[in-house]
């Protein structure tokens, strides 16, 4: 549905929407007749191309949250690191946060650029079996702002899926920006001709965050995206001096646990607020490798294990079904 032409009238409803050719902003648009005829509602050919391209990717996982700053990118990066710690698996991490790409820094790849290869853009590799793609690799300086409206962002996401030379992959992890907007609709739509395992939803414990996350869950249900489970991040801070726990973001309405019980969703785990995680991200290193014996590392690994299990059970279910 990246269906608003760049030269469209200001309030173009989109060439594939129900209102196409019929809304008041369509008046005077040279394409009004075409849109009204319904011809433009045909599926974007890119969807089939993407389906073809990603047919060599076994598992696709989206990391989502309605709320900003809850740790989506941190989680995506650690999920990718943990999956790739098995040297026999090929893993890729795609950052579709077009306006605030933080994956390059978190993965220690700031300043890297993508290269054009015969078969498309080649991603940037952290390890032989861990590839990363982000709009950050296409910017010339860390001050560059991507001030794009929706349609342009959608075009970029399409290119990331269709024109990147992903190769054979076991896992593709997709990190998203906060909210339920163009980026989210686009990724779901562009992946509609492929199998997506599901979404991992990240939240922090307080209601201010949960109220947005509930909307994200509604979004998943609306677009029929299965939810693998919920991760509660920044849940409790253990003082390094006195070892007492403080609830910096208090779970005033029962936190993710209560929400998961209410909505009948699995809670994959609760990751504590650990300053070393923030530091690892700033320095572009894997916290899992830096502090392998911390409680947070163990929790991450347990969560990743549940996700792996979900993905493989899913595959067997599907095989049984066919």
């Amino acid at each position, binding site marked *: *549905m990246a269906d*608003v032409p760049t030269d*469209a009238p*200001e309030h*173009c*409803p*989109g060439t594939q929407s129900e209102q196409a050719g019929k809304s008041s*902003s369509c008046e005077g648009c040279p394409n009004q007749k075409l849109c009204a005829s319904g011809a433009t509602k045909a599926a974007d050919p890119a969807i089939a191309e993407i389906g073809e391209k990603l047919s060599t990717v076994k598992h696709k996982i989206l990391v989502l949250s*309605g*709320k*900003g*700053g*809850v740790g989506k990118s941190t989680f995506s990066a650690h999920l990718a690191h943990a999956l790739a710690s098995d040297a026999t698996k090929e893993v890729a991490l795609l950052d579709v946060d077009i*306006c*605030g790409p*933080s994956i390059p*820094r978190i993965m220690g790849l700031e300043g890297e650029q993508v290269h054009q290869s015969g078969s498309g853009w080649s991603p940037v590799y952290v390890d032989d079996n861990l590839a990363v793609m982000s709009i950050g690799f296409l910017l010339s300086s*860390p*001050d*560059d*702002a991507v*001030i*794009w*409206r*929706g*349609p342009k962002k959608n075009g970029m996401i399409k290119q990331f899926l269709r024109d990147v030379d992903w190769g054979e992959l076991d896992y593709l992890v997709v990190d998203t*920006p*906060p*909210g*339920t*907007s*163009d980026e*989210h*609709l686009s990724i779901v739509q562009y992946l509609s001709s492929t199998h997506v395992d599901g979404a991992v939803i990240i939240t*922090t414990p*307080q*209601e*201010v*965050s949960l*109220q*947005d996350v509930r*909307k994200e869950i*509604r*979004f998943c249900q*609306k677009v029929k995206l299965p939810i693998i489970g919920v991760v509660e991040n920044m849940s409790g*801070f253990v*003082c*390094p*001096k*006195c070892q*007492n726990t*403080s*609830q*910096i*973001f*208090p779970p*005033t309405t029962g936190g993710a646990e209560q929400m998961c019980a209410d909505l009948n969703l699995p809670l994959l785990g609760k990751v504590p607020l650990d*300053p070393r995680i923030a*530091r690892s991200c*700033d320095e572009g290193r894997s916290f899992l490798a830096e502090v392998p014996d911390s409680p947070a590392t163990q929790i991450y690994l347990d969560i990743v294990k549940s996700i792996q299990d979900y993905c493989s059970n899913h595959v067997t279910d599907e095989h049984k079904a066919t």
Partner: protein
Amino acid sequence: QINNNNISESLSQVQHVVLVLSGKGGVGKSTITTELALALRHAGKKVGILDVDLCGPSIPRMLNVGRPDVHQCDSGWVPVYTDAQKSLALMSIGFLLDDPDEAVVWRGPKKTALIGQFVSDVAWGELDVLLVDTPPGTSDEHLAVLENLKKHRVDGAVLVTTPQAVSTGDVRREITFCKKTGVRILGIIENMSGFVCPHCSECSNIFSKGGGEELAKLTGSVFLGAVPLDPLLSASMEEGKDFSQTFPESSTFSAINSISQTLLCSLQAS
């Protein structure tokens, strides 16, 4: 029924318009907006908050106004007042949505259209300062708000960041956004700076420290101040309590208060 009120009318009695921006999500834009508004009101000012975060409007909860029905008068939408003196007015795009849990799954053009109408259609009346809380990023909502507010006036933007590099990196991009769109940067606030353990008073820099001040130096912007990571503040936000009333003696409140004073001076000087 859409009002054909023009923008300069609805904002004609508003002295100053300040955007609260951050490239990064969850750094405390809405919290800072709320606290600045409360501090300014505390100082005797008439304040308004315009919340344009369509996908995640947080201010109604933070000010504990629930989900009021908003009404229209001849000059547009009537904002919701949090007190009898009508010294703090709020208009949230959240008020116009039917179901609070429903996801607003809209693409850019639709958001642009709604925001355009929304910004020009609130009957603010007389205000000293109007604070505009925005969603994270530099995209449709931001461009739409700016385009519409600029027809009247925009004094400038306050940028909120947390201290860690992952966040200041996004705020650097926001600074470029301000430069490209001609918005004056009134200053940078570092939020969630240092956490004092309530059990042993040890200060931990959970999201590191000093990143906001460094960024201000690097980019030649004013550093407005640092607000600590305070569990009493997040609890207060959850319950929609007025932190300036409940903890007027805390160092967190004094940090916020001094930021609001600096901001006010810079607005009045311009």
